[in-house]
């Protein structure tokens, strides 16, 4: 077959395959257009998961008749004035979306620019343009798309159920809505009950309000504000406390210059920042917005623009990790409010049906010969009622202690939990978890200060790896040395490990080094080694701390509370569980129906 130029329609359909993958990608392109047009109010409606019908209405600038004519042509855009691909300040720029969409569905655009006397309407069906005609519209643009993929039936077959597609649309709109709290979004259509996110105030409070609308009020209560900048780069947004986590990474919303992305560098940095707080199978919840000079970041990596390329990935990484760690350290003593809420929920009003006579001091004394299949029971005589250990009460709590965040210790219950009183509530501390974290933080400081002791190997372990892995390991040799792992080049395809961290004892060097290399290839960090060292520290901390079951004196309890206040990250134990919960007086009053 001879080589020939493909027809315009075919080219558009091929392009559509990249840009328009599913209804949600159409919604994404259209909403981004609306945002680029300066809309303050955007309404999105879909039917049949977006396959039957998609409509996006905005109150943006609109287009003139001439612009409209051109907009559905390939590589026509208003967003790249000087054709400078390095300085993209808009969400779109490729000029592919509208023609691609027009190529695979029945597209109708109605728009009015303020310079035009009336609105214009243009239809494209399967890539075929109908003539422009006048229409009625006050201002802004209305884009309607019916029968998506009718022109490419193959694509239709790959769509998931309407419900799933509708959910994907929702997710796209959520992400865009998060990045633009100042724009009001409405999401309606047959697929769902309509929701509206009202325009929020500019700045952090508005942002948090929008995030709370979308992620739920619990996120707001557990969010820590992140704000950091360096060398023209800004990171803003909110991260949840380590005690508020999810089992998957779907709660991680990252934006670069207002564009929702799922980028490896960023996700890796996020894992690194939280690695000290979370167990392996829990993931943090964050919504972070990175702003950078568009010249420093290449968004033209993927047609759907979910991946970006940073010119200086190291800066992005260090700023992200640094600002998150700083914020978490600052707020580290705060435990998730879910703790308190769960506590409230766990309280039940006393009810006689739950009362168990076997637990009661008034347990009936056995009379006569009771024989049965029941477990033999030890009878007891009455020697007084059980009551709380009153030793902590011996000293009246000093008023200044009550003003401290964790209050004054009043009692220890079940030889495990410290009950402390604050001015406006009460605090219950898990003594082992809390002390373990304190010891752990101390050990971590010691590692930071004096490094990790290294065991020299009698016979250096030669680990064969591919060349790229060797290269990666060697460029980070200094960092690895700080963690006690000394390795050097051993020919092109191997490294020789000479010293290992003595804390780890006898280890599978080969396995660890190849783990490290693989992890570095993917995430560009030496987390596995650090994690293992910290794991050992955590185990040692566990053995070195006050156990549950140890009775503490009032002075010891107060000393523990004061040290918790002074230590960063003392709000959660090494496994991300809270070390204390707080009940506000208002909560207690609510429990008793006083409020």
């Amino acid at each position, binding site marked *: 077959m001879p080589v020939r130029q493909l027809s315009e329609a075919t080219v558009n359909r091929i392009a559509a395959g990249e840009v328009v993958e599913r209804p949600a990608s159409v919604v994404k392109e259209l909403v981004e257009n609306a945002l680029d047009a300066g809309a303050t109010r955007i309404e999105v409606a879909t039917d049949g998961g977006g396959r039957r019908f998609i409509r996006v209405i905005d109150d943006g600038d609109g287009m003139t008749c001439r612009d409209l004519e051109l907009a559905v042509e390939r590589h026509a855009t208003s967003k790249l004035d000087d054709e400078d691909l390095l300085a993209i300040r808009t969400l779109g720029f490729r000029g592919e979306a509208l023609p691609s969409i027009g190529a695979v569905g029945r597209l109708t655009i109605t728009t009015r620019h303020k310079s035009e006397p009336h609105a214009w309407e243009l239809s494209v069906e399967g890539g075929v343009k109908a003539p422009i005609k006048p229409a009625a519209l006050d201002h802004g643009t209305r884009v309607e798309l019916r029968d998506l993929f009718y022109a490419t039936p193959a694509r239709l077959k790959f769509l998931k159920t309407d419900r799933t597609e509708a959910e994907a649309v929702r997710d796209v709109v959520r992400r865009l809505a998060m990045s633009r709290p100042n724009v009001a979004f409405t999401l309606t259509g047959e697929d769902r009950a309509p929701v509206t996110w009202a325009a929020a105030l500019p700045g952090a409070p508005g942002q948090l309000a929008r995030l709370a609308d979308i992620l739920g009020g619990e996120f707001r209560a557990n969010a820590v504000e992140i704000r950091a900048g360096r060398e023209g780069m800004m990171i803003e947004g909110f991260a949840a406390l380590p005690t508020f986590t999810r089992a998957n990474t779907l709660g991680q919303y990252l934006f670069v210059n207002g564009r929702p992305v799922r980028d490896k560098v960023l996700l890796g940095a996020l894992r690194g920042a939280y690695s000290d707080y979370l167990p392996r199978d829990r993931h943090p919840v964050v919504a972070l917005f990175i702003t950078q000079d568009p010249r420093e970041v290449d968004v033209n990596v993927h047609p759907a623009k979910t991946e970006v390329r940073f010119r200086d990935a190291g800066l992005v990484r260090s700023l992200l990790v640094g600002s998150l760690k700083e914020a978490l350290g600052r707020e580290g003593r705060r435990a998730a409010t879910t703790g308190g809420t769960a506590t409230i929920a766990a309280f039940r009003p006393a009810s006689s049906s739950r009362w168990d006579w076997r637990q009661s001091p008034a347990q009936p004394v056995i009379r006569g010969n009771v024989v049965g299949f029941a477990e*033999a029971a*030890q009878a007891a005589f009455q020697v007084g009622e059980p009551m709380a250990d009153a030793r902590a009460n011996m000293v009246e709590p000093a008023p200044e202690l009550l003003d401290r965040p964790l209050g004054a210790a009043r009692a220890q219950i079940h030889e495990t939990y410290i009950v402390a009183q604050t001015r406006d509530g009460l605090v219950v501390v898990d003594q082992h978890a809390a002390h373990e974290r304190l010891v752990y933080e101390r050990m971590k400081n010691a590692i930071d200060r004096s490094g990790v002791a290294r065991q020299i190997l009698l016979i250096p372990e030669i680990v064969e790896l591919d060349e790229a892995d060797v290269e990666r390991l060697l460029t980070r040799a200094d960092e690895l040395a700080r963690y006690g792992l000394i390795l050097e080049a051993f020919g092109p395809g191997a490294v020789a490990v000479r010293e290992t961290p003595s804390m780890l004892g006898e280890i599978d060097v080969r396995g660890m080094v190849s783990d490290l290399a693989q992890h570095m290839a993917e995430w560009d960090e030496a987390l596995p080694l650090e994690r293992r060292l910290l794991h050992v520290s955590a185990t040692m901390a566990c053995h070195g701390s006050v156990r549950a079951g140890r009775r503490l004196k009032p002075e010891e309890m107060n000393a523990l509370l004061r*040290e918790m206040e002074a230590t960063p990250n003392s709000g959660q134990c090494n496994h991300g569980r809270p070390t204390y919960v707080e009940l506000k007086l208002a909560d207690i009053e609510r429990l008793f129906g006083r409020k």
Partner: protein
Amino acid sequence: MKVTVERTALLKSLGRVHRVVERRNTIPILANVLIRADKSKLSLKATDLDLEVIDSVDAEVSPGGSTTVPAHMFYEIVRKLPEGSQIVLEASGDRAVLAIRAGRSRFTLQTLPESDFPDLAAGDMTHKFTLAASDLKRLIDKTQFAISTEETRYYLNGIYLHTAGSGKATMLRAVATDGHRLAQVELPLPSGATGMPGIIVPRKTVGEVLRLIEDADAEVAIELSQGKIRFSIGDVVLTSKLIDGTFPDYARVIPLGNDKELVVDKKDFEASVDRVSTVSSERGRAVKLSISAGKLMLSVTNPDSGSATEELEIEYASDPIEIGFNSRYLLDIAAQIEGEVAVLRLADAGSPTLIQDKDAAGALYVLMPMRV
């Protein structure tokens, strides 16, 4: 401060005081032992805020002074130094370390200032008396096993020491109970103890005192007040807080009216209970006593493993009765019987049983049955 002291003497003293120090602490100074050198004496003091032990040894001191060092580490160092060595302890004012030298070994330990070391501030003691070490040992030995560990009844977590009328004489009586069993021992009231308040001595204190008087046969001087007690045994002084609570009216549960009297050889009884309880499970340690005229049948049935029975000859003339007990409790009490013959006084299968030594008065035990 510079002190020269003989290793064996120092080790013995440290051994006495360092046990008080908890292994894990939330207050750093509590892990330390206070060393004070003055006038050819080196005194050592350790505390856990409820209990403090002071001991002193002869030493060459010049000049005097005081400091605190980690107790367990100091003990381990001294323990590992060669026997018979002379140990030199030296602390200079400007650096917060204590140098320890012996032979060719040199250690430095970080110190914490003496001023931070807590003081129990004993205050005025209202009553003073002395007891022979053997008598004190008897009071503790025979009651210690019954002390409760249950924190919700913290007032049972010690031995209740008080005066009580027994017939015409007034006695010094020790009582402990955990709600399942009760032990009571009494001695003639020593002079000086008249009018003393009833006090509850905590379990840990009791254990420490017992260790200190283990091989002592001298007199122990006891001083006490409403809130504190002090034992002086030779050079060692142990001061402890008392449990702030009211011991329940235990007399109500002592069944003085039980009419079914069983007399049994203590050794045989103890050995039999021990044998049959071999088959009992971890959870249920019940042993059944089937008592009829002149005969005691002990039996254990464990549905998971098997059963055991054993017969004993006894003196018994009342109506036959079946009653169950926790075998461990029975053994605990049997171990306290000093004479050859034990007497059990029973009422019925659901009521407390009184156990006594046939010959020796002054001690009695009450045990609640199990349902079998």
